[in-house]
Structures are given as C-alpha cells and as structure tokens.
C-alpha cells in the first residue's frame, strides 16, 4: 500500500488537541462554568478545524493510499510503533467523530444533564473524542487497542453518572460486555502477531503476511476478533447491552455511542479482521451474514414492541448495523462500500434521532410513545425534523439512509467468489423484508408521536427548536440530505480504499 507522508503532524494534532483542552479544563477552578464551556467549545472548534484542514489537504485522487502517515517508535520492545494514517475508509469516520463531538458540545452548552458538573462532563467528552479519532487513524494493532479501550471509561462514567434511572446497571453492563470482547480481541491480536513471525504490529505488514497463516489457525484468530468487534457493533446475540446503555445514557452519550462508538466495531472488521485474515473471513462470512440478518429482523421486531421512543431508536440501531454487517459479510467491494456508507449515514441519522429524543424528553418529560402525540401542532419544527429523520432512517431514497441500506441488500445478490450464492440470496430476501419492518416501526412511531391531537397534559416547558439545537442539528440535517442526493461525494472517497482492503478477494 502506498504511504503518503506529507503533513504528517496533522493527524496527531487533530487527535490529541482535545487532550490539551482536558488539561486546560483541569486547571479551571471549581464553579467557573462559563470558562469551562468556553474552553471546551474552543477546543472542539479547533479540533474540527484541524479536521477540515485534513479534509482540504487530503489527496482525493489517492484515496486508496494511506495519507498523512506518521511513524515513530513507541514501544520498541514489543515491536509496536506509533503509526498513524488515514485513507478513504478512515477519513469520513475520523471527521464524523470530530463533527459529532463539536455538535454534542454545542448542544450541551445549555443541556448539561442532571446532576450537572459541566467540568467533568466536558472532560469525559473530550477524552472520548481523542479515543474515537485515535481508533480511526491507528495503523498499529496495539495503538488501535489502546485507543479502542480509551473510550470505555469515559462512556462508562457518562452513562453511570449522567444517565437515567437504571444508569448503574446499564453502565456496568456496557462495560463488562465491551471489556469481555476486547480481552479476546487482544489475545487474537497477539496470536496474529506471533503467527506472522512476531515482526510487527503494523496493520499493513499484517495484511501482507496474515494470508500466509494456516487456515485453521486463521479461523480461531478471526473468532477472537469477531467477538471483540461484534460486541461493539453490536451484532445479535451480543447486542443486549445496547438498548440498556442507549436508554439510560444522557442524550449526548447516546448520540456519541450511536454515531461513533458502534462504528469502531464495524471499522475493525473492515480495517483489520477481513484484510489480515482473508481465508478465515471467507469461512466466517456466511455466519456473520446470518447473524446480521437475524439482527435486522430481531431489531425490527424489537422496535415494534417498544413503548419508549429512545429504546425504539436503540433497537433500530441493532437493525441498521445488521445491514452494515450484511454488506461487509459479502466481502465484495460493492457490499463494503455500502457498509462504510451505512456507517456514516447511521451515525448522522441515529445521532440526530437521539438528539430529538433528548429534546422531546426535555419538553414532555417522558419518552413513553403512548403519552406523546400531536407534536406537529405543538412543536411543528421539531415534529418535521423527526419526520425527516424517520424517513432517512427507514431508507427513503434521496436521503442518506438509502445508500447504506439498499446497496447492502443488493450486494448480497452477488457475494464474493467462494461464498454460497443461495445462502446470500436468502439473506437478501430476509433483509429486504427487514426494510418493510423498518418502515412499519418508524412510520408507526411518527404517527403516534407527531400526528393526532396533543394529549391533554399541561406542558409548561413546551417550546420549539431553540438556537443551540438549530446550530447543533443543522449540519447533520444538511449532511443527511446532501449525502442522500449526491452519494458519490462519499462513495468516491470510500471506494478506492475499499478496493485496497479487499484485494485478497480479487476485488
């Protein structure tokens, strides 16, 4: 793989800038909330600005190569290096993490969840940002692992301290599931390292040499990685932490979780598991695909059964990530392209839906779907935004969700050579039925919350979308429409990198 080393400081600055903000925040004396907010906002804006600079300097003609590559010694004894870079797969997710964090910070300026303490809240948000961005740029497995784990504790505290009624249970469940996955993942990483001759943890090196590992060994190593990544995605049957975590997390936590953290798992499959272990990937793909379609149907049925709006959105994540995993399991460039697009689209749309859920909760003091109603008459703008995002989520053409979902289904018609076509076509049919369910639960949700007459409660806090919310949401809404109308903006960046990642499958 070609490495472009120009501007190699850009990624490190973008990733660690939030940590500078953390240090600054720690020095702010207690009680100075306005200073805390200013510092956080400035940090987030500066980080996003570095992100935009990265985007501008990114050579789109060479989106398949690693760019801004920096490599320096880190832990020489175990042959692990500080090795970072972005290509077309990483770049959208890297930027997404920066944008989402900025928007979350803006939203939080007047929405610090109970019990307050903005200083601690923003410190955790910024640490999360470093972890997320770092995961997407790491080109060394140990570095990847460290960043991957770095997000755990902040999210644990975010759910556990600022969450809802069941926050303590939800936060520990989230943590134990993820940690279980990452422990096995680490063992798998080490096995991969030793089986490739104990030379290097660099991903490009492992991609080159991983294919030489005997197939029966590959299958086991892949199994370890599979558990680690599948918990994070989450795939059925490892998903049970997700509804709890999402429901209990504060709005900001849910948004970050849905928009970025879930992508760490799918990204792991695309970046590490599949390219390094191609034989095992072929062996496992039908099972992964099978679990993916089970997730699609299960998530959809789960959604239909929910009475809580936030929990419904959480279950819809299980279904949507099922589409992403189905695309990945085809091992075709077409499917993986759809999957990466689906990751970004899901980040935008579901992030937005969680924002809306938070604002609904703030206004109506409940998320019980049965107690909501008539939003279009009471808070018309919020109602319309919910409508747009529901449509995007169910995969309406012209909005971003469509380009993640539809090509993923289509790609199952023609999986990579060596995979059983009949099995995949069955998956395709099941996934297509899943989209009907998706339409059903989202339209039903919309019908029950936005239409009809408001149910008699006296809502003092009822006000339409306010300025902070507009600023936080508009970029997401614009992106949902823009990527829906012109998906090639994204596909053209992703595709060359996907082709590179799937070289082993003749793609």
């Amino acid at each position: 793989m070609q490495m472009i080393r120009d501007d190699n400081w850009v990624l490190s600055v973008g990733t660690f800038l939030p940590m500078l903000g953390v240090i600054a925040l720690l020095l702010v004396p207690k009680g100075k909330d306005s200073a805390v907010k200013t510092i956080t906002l400035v940090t987030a804006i500066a980080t996003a600005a570095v992100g935009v600079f990265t985007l501008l300097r990114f050579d789109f003609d060479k989106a398949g190569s690693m760019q801004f590559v920096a490599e320096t010694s880190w832990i020489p004894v175990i042959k692990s290096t500080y090795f970072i870079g972005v290509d077309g797969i990483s770049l959208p997710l890297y930027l997404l993490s920066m944008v989402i964090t900025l928007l979350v910070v803006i939203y939080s300026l007047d929405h610090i969840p109970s019990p307050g303490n903005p200083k601690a809240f923003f410190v955790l948000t910024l640490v999360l940002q470093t972890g997320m961005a770092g995961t997407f740029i790491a080109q060394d497995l140990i570095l990847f692992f460290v960043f991957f784990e770095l997000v755990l504790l902040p999210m644990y505290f975010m759910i556990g301290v600022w969450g809802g009624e069941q926050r303590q249970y939800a936060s520990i469940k989230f943590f134990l599931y993820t940690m279980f996955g990452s422990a096995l993942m680490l063992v798998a990483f080490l096995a991969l390292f030793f089986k490739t001759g104990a030379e290097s943890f660099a991903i490009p090196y492992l991609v080159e040499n991983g294919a030489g590992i005997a197939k029966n060994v590959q299958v086991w190593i892949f199994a370890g990685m599979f558990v680690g990544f599948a918990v994070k995605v989450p795939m059925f049957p490892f998903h049970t932490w997700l509804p709890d975590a999402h429901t209990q997390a504060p709005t900001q936590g849910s948004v970050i979780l849905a928009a970025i953290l879930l992508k760490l798992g799918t990204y792991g499959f695309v970046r590490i598991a599949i390219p390094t272990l191609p034989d095992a990937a072929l062996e496992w793909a039908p099972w992964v695909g099978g679990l993916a379609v089970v997730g699609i149907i299960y998530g959809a049925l789960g959604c239909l059964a929910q009475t809580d709006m936030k929990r419904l959105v959480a279950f819809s994540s299980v279904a949507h990530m099922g589409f992403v995993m189905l695309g990945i399991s085809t091992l075709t460039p077409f499917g993986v392209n759809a999957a990466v697009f689906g990751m970004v689209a899901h980040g935008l749309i579901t992030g937005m839906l969680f924002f809306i859920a938070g604002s609904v909760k703030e206004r109506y003091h409940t998320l019980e779907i049965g107690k909501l109603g008539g939003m279009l008459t009471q808070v018309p703008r919020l109602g319309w935004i919910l409508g747009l995002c529901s449509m995007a989520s169910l995969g309406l053409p012209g909005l971003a969700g469509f380009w993640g979902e539809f090509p993923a289904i289509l790609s199952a018609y023609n999986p990579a050579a060596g995979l059983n076509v009949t099995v995949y076509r069955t998956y395709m049919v099941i996934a297509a039925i899943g989209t009907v369910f998706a339409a059903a639960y989202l339209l039903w949700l919309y019908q029950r919350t936005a239409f009809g007459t408001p149910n008699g409660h006296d809502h003092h806090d009822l006000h339409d979308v306010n300025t902070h919310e507009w600023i936080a949401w508009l970029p997401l809404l614009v992106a949902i429409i823009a990527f829906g109308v012109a998906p090639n903006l994204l596909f053209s960046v992703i595709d060359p990198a996907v082709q590179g990642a799937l070289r082993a499958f003749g793609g």
Partner: protein
Amino acid sequence: MELLAASAAAWTAPTVDYHALAPEIVLAVGLCVVLLVDLFTPERNKWLLSVLTGFSLLGAALPTLTLALHDDTTRSLFDGRYVVDEFSLVMKGLFLVAGYVIVLLSSAHVEEGDYWRGEYWFLLLTSLLGMVMMASSRDLVSVFVALEFLSIPAYMLAAWRKRDAKSNEAGMKYFLLGVFASAVMLYGMSLLYGLANSTLLVDIAGSASLDGEFAAVQALAVVFVVVGFAFKVSAVPFHTWAPDTYEGAPTPVTAFLSVASKAAGFVALVVLVLTAFPQARDVWQPFIWVLSALTMTIGNVFALRQTNLVRMIAYSSVSQGGFVLMPLAVAGGAAGESALRAVVVYLVVYAVTNLGMFAAILAVSRKTRSGDITSLGGLFSYAPALGVLFTIFLASLAGIPPLGGWIGKFAAFQALLTDATPWAYVLAVIGAVNSVIAFGYYGNVMREIWMRPVPHGDTTPVVTPSSLQIALGITAVATLVLGVLPGIVLHFGDVADIVGAFGG
C-alpha cells in the same frame, strides 16, 4: 578434629566487592542509626525517624543506581552465592522505591496512631534489607536467610496495632502460616541438598540428579520449595492468611505486605525456577499453571463478594498474583526470557498502582474512619481529585489502557502466546476472562465513588497530609506514564536478565 583443622587452613577471607554490597550496607547502617536515634529522641521529635528511614532508602538507592550505570552490571560474590545482576538491580530499585513510598504512606499514620514509632521504622528497614538481599541470593541458604529476614519483621508489623484484636489476629495468622510455609520449604531444600550435594542454585541445576527421569523425591523437593513461596505470594490455595492479615494489619503495613513482600516472594520464585530448576520444568510448570489459574479465579470470585475495601483489595491482590504466575507457567520453555520480562514488568506496574491505591485509601479513611466500600459513596462530588485518583488506580489494576496496568497484562499474555502450546493458550483465555470478571469489583468501587450518594450527607472535605499527597502524586504520574509510554518499563524488563538462567 582433623577435618576442622584442614578446612580452617584452607579458608581464606573472600574478597568483598564493597560497591556491589553498598545498598545492603547503607540499609544496615541506616537501621542501626534509626534504632539508636530512637533511644535518645524525646517523644515530640520522633518524626525525625521517618525522615531518617526515608534517607536510608534513598541512600541505598544511590549505589543501586551507580551499579546499574556501571559498564559491568554483573558482579558475582562469594563463589556465586550472592550475585548482583541486572535482574537483582531492577528488583532492588523496585523494593527501595516502594519502601520509600511506604514511608510516605506511614508517616502521618504512625504519628497519629497509637504505635511504637521508633521500632516501626526499624522493622520496616530490616524487612526491606531482607528483600534487597533476596534479589541477589543465589544459594539455598542465603535465600532462606533473606526470606526470614524479610518475613519476621513483617509478622510483627502486621500485629502493630497492639490493642486491636484484629491486628493481633492478623499478625498471628501470618506468623503461623508463614512459619509453616518456611518449614515445608526447608524440607524441600534439605531434599535438594541431599540430591545435589550443594546449596548453590547453579549447582543444583547442573547436578545430574535433577536431570532426566524423575524419582518421586526429586519432584517432591521442587514442589515443596515452590509451595513455600506460594504461601509468600498468597497463591491459592495457600492464600488463606492474606485477607485476614491485610484487613487486620495497619493499612500502610498492608500496602507493604501486598506490594513489597509479595514482590520479594516472586523474586525468589523466579530465581529458583529459572536458575535452580530449569531441568525440572516438567514438574513446576504444570504446578504453577494450576496455581495461576486457581489464584486468578478464586481471588476474583471472593473479591466480588467483599464489602470491606481493604479486604477486597486483599483478594484483588491475590488475583493479581495469579497474573504474575501466568507467565511463570511457561518460563521453562522457549518463552523463558519473555516470561521473565513479563514478571518484572507486571511487578513494577502492580507495585506502583497498588501503592497508589493504598495511598488513596489512607487519604479517604482519614475522613470516613470506615473500611466499607460504601463509605466511598459520592467521593467524586466532594473530593473530585481523590475520586479521579481512585479511578486511575482502579482502572490500572483492572488493566484498562492507557493506564499502567494494561502493559503488565499485555506482557503476561505475550509470554503465553510466545510459548504457543495449547496449555498456554488455555491459560491465556482463563486470564482474559478473569480480567473481565475483575472489573466487576473494581467497577463497583468506581460506581460507589461516582454514582452513589454521599453517606449521611457528610461532605466535609478530605484533608490529605503532604506526605500522602506526594505519594499520591508519584504513583499517579507513574501509573499514567507507564501506561502511555510503556517502553520505559518494558526496557527494565528487557535488561533484567538473571545470571545463570537460560543457560547464561
């Protein structure tokens, strides 16, 4: 009579390399000074003693450093019975630094409690001297002497809260089980001597009687010696003293036992299995494998059930011991050097983190006067700095990057996978599962600190004496730095070669 005369005639005084012995000599002088100064110091000036103890430790650290920086880091004394090599220097450094942090932890505690102050420092120094000697001992006799040297003062320290029944129980239990372990070990050592006709470890390794096919007696000798140290490092099922002793002993002493004393046990174990029993790996490897798996698992399961903080840490330290044993279970094979590195790295990281943990516990218990985990409720809301420090140490113990603990676990897993035998893989998976279970109780404490209400609404601020603040600062910074730049500690692990091991 003739024999005696003959041996007396043949005896010449050995040439002593005083530079190599300088750390021990400084400590020995230091502890005499502490004892003497104590006699002539009025009660109000007894704080001097802690200062003197601290200086003795730093004074001993100096020659350790010069020895390490010297070109020739390997010095063999007394016909190879006492060896100063890289491994021993790293471990001596660890003991001295850990000792210094213990002094910082103890000073306020000892001043304020009803303790015999002078003797406290004297015994602490004596025990540390034993540990420093242990790092260099390469002979059954000197190993045993060092072991008793470090253990006997520790028995007394455990019972230091004189009028407290629990403290007495702590000391008594520790003493009885410790002596029992010594007896078992001595029996094993006597068998070894009988077989090898020498007490020198390298001779034992070289003697034909430990080669090839094993008779029951040879296996028994090896197992007995390992069992003796299994008590010292509180490996399951020889851990039963640890929770009671840890809970009953004064908290700084508990820190000392769970860090320094435990590390000394591991040092001896490592030296013995690598330099004396390399041929007998078919005996001790499976034995340590079982000990490791049991120790991790049982320690964890019991820790999950604890409501008392120190008791929980006691079981957690049992379980951590299982992780140190993990690489040792493959140390006899191709993974030997990687296993030795893992043990050293794990001990360093664990020492730093656990000392920090105890410093935080000491700081908080000054206010709460309680050992219950629930007494930490809402700590973050009224003492955010301590809350964060607790979190750092707990997360490091749980092995979560980017805090120090992960690199220890990583090195241990790495050693197992280097060995690449099915049994090693199984142990690695057991270790991985256990590191998840462990978060159950570490996370429980974090939950208490961050998410629970303050008990009785008592939010009076925690006043931390400056010595504790320094200890907290040192350990927290070290925990973070080791986690982010693990190359530093791995470097120590890499140079820590034992003379005589791996055929060297």
